[in-house]
């Protein structure tokens, strides 16, 4: 899932301070699970902003609300009208949600209430780790299920650099060396010799480097378009 993390309240305040009516709008999926932007955190942010407004002697109405997900239009529909009552929507969804909603709120700005951190897992309660970089071309079968793109600080494809120190990455003793993990894993799998094969330079065009990406499922789109066409012609006949 997508892991988010909270922005300092000062930063949020500098974004919202000139608005009169602010809705802290939560997404109750990924970012809720990582305690960054679910309804509970939205309520906290709303309260802190009201308190801050009080400290600064500003009159500001700050409410909070949530929907299940910010990345599918249907979820907004029931609240779209309500959203129109605000000067600013501070979305605590991930960046996807902020973009997606921004496109739909007309003159009302949508600002990010959290930072979108990465795709990650809940290693243990309160511990979220990045495990995938969404590069669009998965090679995990070659690396023992441990992604060097997401987890090696240098996205090395052919083994560790010289910076591995006691199994940790040169950037911090708190960061595991992905290649150390890969080697240990491959040893366990009895596959270490597979790592001898040289991975050629990657084609990064499937990742962000290829420009904004889109996945388009023809079989589903074609059906939806047909249905749309049908309803249009049916409407025309009336």
């Amino acid at each position, binding site marked *: 899932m997508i892991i988010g993390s909270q922005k300092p309240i000062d930063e949020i305040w500098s974004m919202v301070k000139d608005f009169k009516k602010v809705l802290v709008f939560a997404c109750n999926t990924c970012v809720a699970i990582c305690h960054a932007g679910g309804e509970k955190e939205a309520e906290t942010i709303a309260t802190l902003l009201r308190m801050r407004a009080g400290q600064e002697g500003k009159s500001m109405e700050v409410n909070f609300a949530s929907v299940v997900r910010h990345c599918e239009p249907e979820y907004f529909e029931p609240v779209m009208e309500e959203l129109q009552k605000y000067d600013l929507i501070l979305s605590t969804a991930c960046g996807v949600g902020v973009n997606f909603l921004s496109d739909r709120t007309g003159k009302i700005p949508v600002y990010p209430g959290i930072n979108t951190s990465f795709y990650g897992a809940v290693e243990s309660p309160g511990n979220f780790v990045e495990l995938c970089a969404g590069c669009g071309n998965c090679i995990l079968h070659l690396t023992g299920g441990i992604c060097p793109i997401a987890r090696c*600080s*240098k*996205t*090395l*494809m*052919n*083994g*560790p*650099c*010289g*910076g*591995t*120190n*006691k*199994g940790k*990455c*040169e*950037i*911090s003793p708190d960061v595991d*060396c992905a*290649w*150390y993990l890969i*080697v*240990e894993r491959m*040893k366990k799998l009895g596959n*270490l*010799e597979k*790592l*001898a094969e*040289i*991975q*050629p*330079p*990657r084609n*990064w065009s499937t990742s962000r480097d290829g420009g904004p990406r889109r996945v388009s499922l023809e079989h589903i789109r074609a059906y939806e378009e047909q249905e749309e066409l049908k309803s249009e012609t049916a409407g025309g006949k009336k």
Partner: protein
Amino acid sequence: MKSGSNLERVILSGKPAVTAELGPPMSADGHEVTKKANILKGFCDAANITDCQTAVVRISSIAAAVLAHREGLEPVMQMTCRDRNRIGIQADLLGAAALGLKNCLCLAGDHQKFSAAGRLKGHPGAKNVYDVDTCQLVGILKKMRDEGKQEGGDPLEVAPKFFIGASWTPMGDPIDFRPMNLLKKVNAGADFIQTQGIYDIELFRSQMDKIRNMGLHERTAILGGIIVPKSAMMLKYMDSSVAGVSVPKALIDRMNKAKEAAGDDKKKARELQEAEGIKLTVELIHQVLETPGIRGVHIQAIEWETAIEGIVKDAGLYPRPIFETE
């Protein structure tokens, strides 16, 4: 001859090769480079010109290499994967070749967070590139040189002829993988290898046994890395904090003894330790060169280039062979 560089010639001659290191300055002061080049000239077969090592901005490796070259010191330009994508890398390689550079050492590069181990501000917020890794970079150089093709496949009318080097950390984690790591670099096309600094000669030799079993010592020229110790503190730091370097206690003790012999005299302590460091270096050079499969040494006297002359002489590696240029 793949490149015709001096280093390649020395290696082909079968004599132990000696490389040193020249760190370009963190300013536009080209004199600093020429000064250091003149200090090293004559005492090594080629000198590595580092590529923004420890992730701090310095005169670029290519530019400094050209400056050194002009002074008569053969440079080994370094190329890290950190700062350029394959387009930038290949463009720079073409440029370097056009400027007469013949050795290139391929490296991953220190991570931008490194910032001279925190001693300098550096640029920890920089975006790193790592479009390709070391192994792939070696392959690109080889493809350009031997196939006359860019990585993408476009032809090169005049191919850059580099003597291709790569680094190797023989005693780094995960130690089981390190021979395979070398194998991959050799398979990719590394003509020579410079290793991380060696103090633990026993461990190094056991790794070299594996390398010999794999026959890699015949397919590439391995130059053992020697980092000249300046003080007991430096040895301790390298032992605890530098990846892939472990320093036997006996060596640290020797340095400590030298330090203690000076009593409270700090200046004397430094002098005694430096002297002991040079002595120790010479011993290490001998031990490394006695290791079967080793074809030379890479001596790093970090910010202490003046030490090289004495070391090379004491080690009996002076004078350096001279070849007629074709």
